[in-house]
């Protein structure tokens, strides 16, 4: 399917990327979730401080 063109006789780097990509995809959702959580927490902190100060 893929043919190496970097070093003769070695498989292409695309092979590695092809294999690792589904594994890397697994990391995406928890990271996005964390960003969302953090955003909500920062918003909540800001909200509570605004309530106290203003």
């Amino acid at each position: 399917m893929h043919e190496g063109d970097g070093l003769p006789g070695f498989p292409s780097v695309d092979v590695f990327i092809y294999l690792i990509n589904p594994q890397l995809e697994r990391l995406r959702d928890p990271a996005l979730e964390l960003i969302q959580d953090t955003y909500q927490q920062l918003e909540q902190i800001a909200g509570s401080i605004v309530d106290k100060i203003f």
Partner: protein
Amino acid sequence: MAARYVGDPRTIILCVLPANADMTTSDGLQMAREMDPKGIRTIGVITKLDIMDKGTNGKRMLEGKDVSLRLGFIGIKNRSQQDIIDRIPVKQAIEKEQLYFSTHQVYSTMNQNLLGIGNLTTKLTKILFTHIKHSLPQIMQEIRAKAKETEDDLRDLGPPMPEGGGEKTQLLWNMITDFIQTYKNTISGKYDSKRQMSSQPGKAELSGGARIKMNFYNLYQEYDGFSATSEYNDMHVQKAI
């Protein structure tokens, strides 16, 4: 409504009972007994002593032999309807009452402190004075606590709104600076008196920054020791190549 007033432990209960009815069945006395079981703040006033059945008298009631109260009973004789129609003044009515008790064959032999509006007035004044003396420290304490609470509320409200435009802008800037400072302190976990003041004491919870840091720390914890190649075998690699 009566129950609300009577339920207050600082209220003196003036329980007025007609002498010509059975006092043990009186609703007022029953309520007083319920709210003040020890009878320490109930004073019994027995009226209509002059219109009791002939041959009966209120001596037992007045001496607390039927129902006992710590503050005791006082017997009085108010103006009758005829007296009111005849426009007899209160002063004269009190004199008539004194005459009634001093000439009555039973009441005249009794302790005179248990009879008459005059004695009731004196007794109530004494009770009220003692009551105030006992309750005042507690009331003052309550007032101090309330004043402190109100001062705290006032401080939480912040400085008053200034009149001038420039001062308003200044106030707004100060508030924004305060907001930024407090926000930064919350994230970095620095001590901030403004933040501490309004947080609930004893409630152990992480500050904003620490909570976020913990979330980051927990990210990918489940992947610790995970091997990305464990799901692949030679066939997969061959196929990919």
